């Protein structure tokens, strides 16, 4: 029979500690309910509040009742000060930022959580007492905690910079072997510390492997996200989100803290599923995304581009107002131009002319799944007008005019008929099957996948160049004058 050093001690507890476990239980249940309610449109807002309620419960409970060997939480004024600083900053940032910048913001906050998890693990390492034998349990929670938290932090910061337009893509295949090597080194470092820890005479373990791991993880996080194309950023953020969940769960293991454990694992698994759902929406495998195949591709263009035909605002207005059925395909360009309100205004005008208008939302329209729905909901577009891709595609051949506003890759027919295209196989909104296509665009620039869009050269397509906001403004005037 083996003996276990970690549990051979008298367990002392206070009523408060017992109460705290109950509080953690309630918080965990609230997290589950919150997440469940968040996945239904009707209850989502309440779900968020329930989860927030559970969180405040867990935080207050910890401050009041947490004990280590009977010692209560100290430095409470400092903790409250830090809390006040973080809460104020978080509140202001979250309230002020434009709706188009939401994906960056989620990435930023995710990075903060990752950094927090890494810091905790880092600070716990010197406390490891190996005098009575190496505590493998603590090592195996601290080392991966440092690694995952740090990768999540630097990765999220790069993702933030990319979505914000501060950082470009680094499209090189050379990074792939470097990344794999780096990952191998980090994993072996963890194994090495487990197998041969550098135990000092005073029972502490030499901390240098942790700092080395910290440095390597920081580099890995950067290199991991750098080669991934901007179009895949939502998937990456979702993945990093579940990473941070894992890092939090490792913290839960470390402190035997059930709230951290359940909260972290829930997000870890839910985040992973969400990542897979997003990949499915783009018909791409997670491995492909991580390998940066999108950015690295750049397949040669074989077809002749042909010429594009422009259309005037006046003609567009006439064409739209005398159609029976119009479908709007909004994209990131609409969001960037902040033109969602004008777009809704135009739709209302058209409906007064007896035109049937619907919106076709590609699963990854905008920069994140569901992002476009949020933006259009902000502009009071009725929920039942938003149609998902699979729902709208069969209707497109019977549509008089498709208006593509600031979207590009999601309507690129190359995804269906050009096997050499990097986006081949991605489900698209089949705008090219409609009777007429109007593309509102600032110029002939390429989309996020950086490939030519042959929809623009289709004989049925007319281009209306200009900023989406200006074009829509003029269009509204023209329709009013009809």
């Amino acid at each position, binding site marked *: 029979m083996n003996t*276990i050093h970690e549990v051979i001690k008298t367990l002392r507890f206070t009523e408060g500690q017992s109460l705290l476990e109950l509080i953690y239980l309630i918080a965990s249940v609230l997290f589950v309910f*919150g*997440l*469940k309610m*968040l*996945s239904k*449109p009707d209850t989502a*807002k309440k779900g968020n509040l329930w*989860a*927030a309620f559970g*969180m405040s419960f867990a*935080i207050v409970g910890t401050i009041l009742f*947490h004990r*280590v060997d009977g010692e209560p939480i*100290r*430095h409470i004024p*400092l*903790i409250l000060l830090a*809390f006040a*600083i*973080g809460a104020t900053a*978080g509140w202001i940032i*979250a*309230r002020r*930022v434009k709706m188009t910048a*939401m994906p960056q913001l*989620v990435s930023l*906050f*995710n990075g*903060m*959580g990752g*950094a*927090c998890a890494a*810091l*905790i693990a880092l*600070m716990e390492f010197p406390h490891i007492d190996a005098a009575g034998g190496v505590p*493998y349990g603590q090592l195996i929670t601290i080392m991966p905690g440092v690694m995952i938290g740090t990768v999540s932090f630097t990765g999220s910061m790069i993702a933030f910079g990319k979505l914000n337009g501060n950082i470009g893509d680094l499209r090189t295949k050379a990074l792939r072997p470097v990344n794999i090597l780096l990952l191998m080194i980090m994993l072996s470092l963890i194994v090495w510390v487990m197998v041969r820890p550098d135990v000092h005479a005073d029972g502490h373990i030499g901390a240098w492997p942790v700092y080395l791991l910290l440095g390597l993880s920081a580099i890995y996080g950067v290199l991991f996200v750098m080669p991934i194309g901007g179009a895949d950023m939502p998937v990456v953020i*979702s993945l990093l*989100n579940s990473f*941070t969940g894992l*890092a*939090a769960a490792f*913290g*839960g293991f*470390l402190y035997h803290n059930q709230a*951290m*454990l*359940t*909260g*972290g*694992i829930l997000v870890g*698994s839910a985040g992973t*599923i969400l990542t897979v759902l997003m990949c499915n929406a783009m018909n791409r495998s997670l491995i492909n995304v991580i390998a940066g195949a999108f950015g690295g591709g750049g397949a040669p263009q074989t077809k002749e581009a042909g010429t594009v035909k422009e259309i005037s605002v006046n003609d567009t207005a006439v064409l739209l107002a005398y159609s029976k059925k119009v479908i709007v395909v909004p994209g990131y360009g609409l969001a960037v131009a902040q033109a969602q309100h004008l777009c809704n205004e135009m739709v209302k005008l058209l409906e007064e002319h007896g035109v049937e208008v619907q919106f076709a939302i590609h699963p990854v329209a905008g920069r994140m799944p569901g*992002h476009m729905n*949020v933006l259009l*909901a902000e502009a009071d577009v*009725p*929920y039942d007008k*938003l149609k*998902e891709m699979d729902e709208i595609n069969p209707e497109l051949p019977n549509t008089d005019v498709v208006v593509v506003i600031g979207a590009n890759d999601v309507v690129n027919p190359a995804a269906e008929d050009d096997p050499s295209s990097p986006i081949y196989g991605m489900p698209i909104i089949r705008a090219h099957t409609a009777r007429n296509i109007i593309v509102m665009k600032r110029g002939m620039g390429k989309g996020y996948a950086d490939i030519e869009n042959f929809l623009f050269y289709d004989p049925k397509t007319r281009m209306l160049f200009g900023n989406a906001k200006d074009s829509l403004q003029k269009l509204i005037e023209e329709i009013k004058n009809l």
Partner: protein
Amino acid sequence: MSEVFEFLYVNREMLFIVALSVLLGIEVISHVPAVLHTPLMSGANAIHGVVIVGAIIVMGHAHSTSAIVLGFFAVILGTLNVVGGFVVTDRMLEMFRKKPGKK
């Protein structure tokens, strides 16, 4: 090898929680409509801010100045994650409120 078994034995209850939570997480969000992907990701993002509990524990039992300083930062970072996450999610969902009767 015995260390592995030791670890499994000591943490047996935690491992149960992990396994069941993984399944629960998958089950809870597997039927989410695409519309809610972004708010859901944001909400989940706020929930993993529970790591702040760990930050409070570290900070609350810190003895050296350096630990207090690091703990202070950890609490700030965790709070940013929690408060920012929930407020952003709320703001996103605010926009769904006025929509008329969704089945």
